């Protein structure tokens, strides 16, 4: 099975995709931390 090569479009969008990924991870971490605070009665 051949792997589709990364196109020029993917290369150009790399920085914004990385930023989007980091933002989503940060959002999940915040929800997790606040859930811990609320569960522990903070």
């Amino acid at each position: 099975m051949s792997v589709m090569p990364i196109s020029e479009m993917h290369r150009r969008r790399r920085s914004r995709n990385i930023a989007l990924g980091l933002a989503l991870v940060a959002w999940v971490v915040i929800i997790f931390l606040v859930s811990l605070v609320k569960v522990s009665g903070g």
Partner: protein
Amino acid sequence: MTIVTDHRLSTAQGAGSASLEADPDGRASDFFALLKPRVMSLVVFTGLVGLVLAPGDLNPIIGFTALLCIAVGAGASGALNMWYDADIDARMSRTQSRPIPSGRVSAGDAKAFGIVLSVASVLTMGLLVNVLSAALLAFTIFFYVVVYTMYLKRRTPQNIVIGGLSGALPPVIGWAAVTGTVSIESLSLCALIFVWTPPHFWALSLVKAADYGAVGVPMMPNVAGPESTRRQILAYAVLLAPLGLAPTLLGFAGLVYGVAAGLLGLVFVALSVRLYLKRDDRAAMQLFGYSILYLFLLFALLLVGRLAGLP
């Protein structure tokens, strides 16, 4: 409304033809610029002061989340403002290098970005902080994007007077994040920023009147004339100076703040009188610069006064 919308679309297509044909792949930094980071920093700062001054305790993680939601909500408003105003931004020297008119981000991407961040910030605030602060954040975004940007800005010289409410609400949101209420104290902070906004913007628009006139935005100097604008700036400054004392009079700031606020307010009035008498761009820009310093110092004094326990 139809004429304005049609014009907006045609101009945006003209300015950003590259964006429509080539579907520009804006970089992360271009999307960050859509958030108007300088405006966002002032909003976060005043929101932080509201949060710190509010009576009661808030877990630091929840406090940080509330500030993040305020920041993202403010940024989303900025992105939607840039999406809607792309036509006039393309024709003003101060704004033509913004991501949409320069073709680095398409108008559609900016709109989607703004809507997603608006919804995410309000939902996160409601789920993780409290419902009132989320409702206030949603109202702030709605007021800035729909009431100010889409309705008032192109129709009335009172645009920034009424629209200034959206910039004045962050301390109320910060206060509500802690207490779950809206109080006279947080409303006094809101009133302070609300009354500060017209002289701040009109001082700049006196200098940039030609730019605003060229794109048809009815700023006060273009509609009522520079003389009337300078008189109104002075009137707002006279109203603003005593309002600065409200935190001390209401008992949530000390005497050090009160004395400083009184002196800073007098300087604001003095610079407004000077602008009224001298009638030149230099005096207008000095008042504009001082107005930023004035608001920053007042809120910094409130913050330091509370954290350091100043009398």
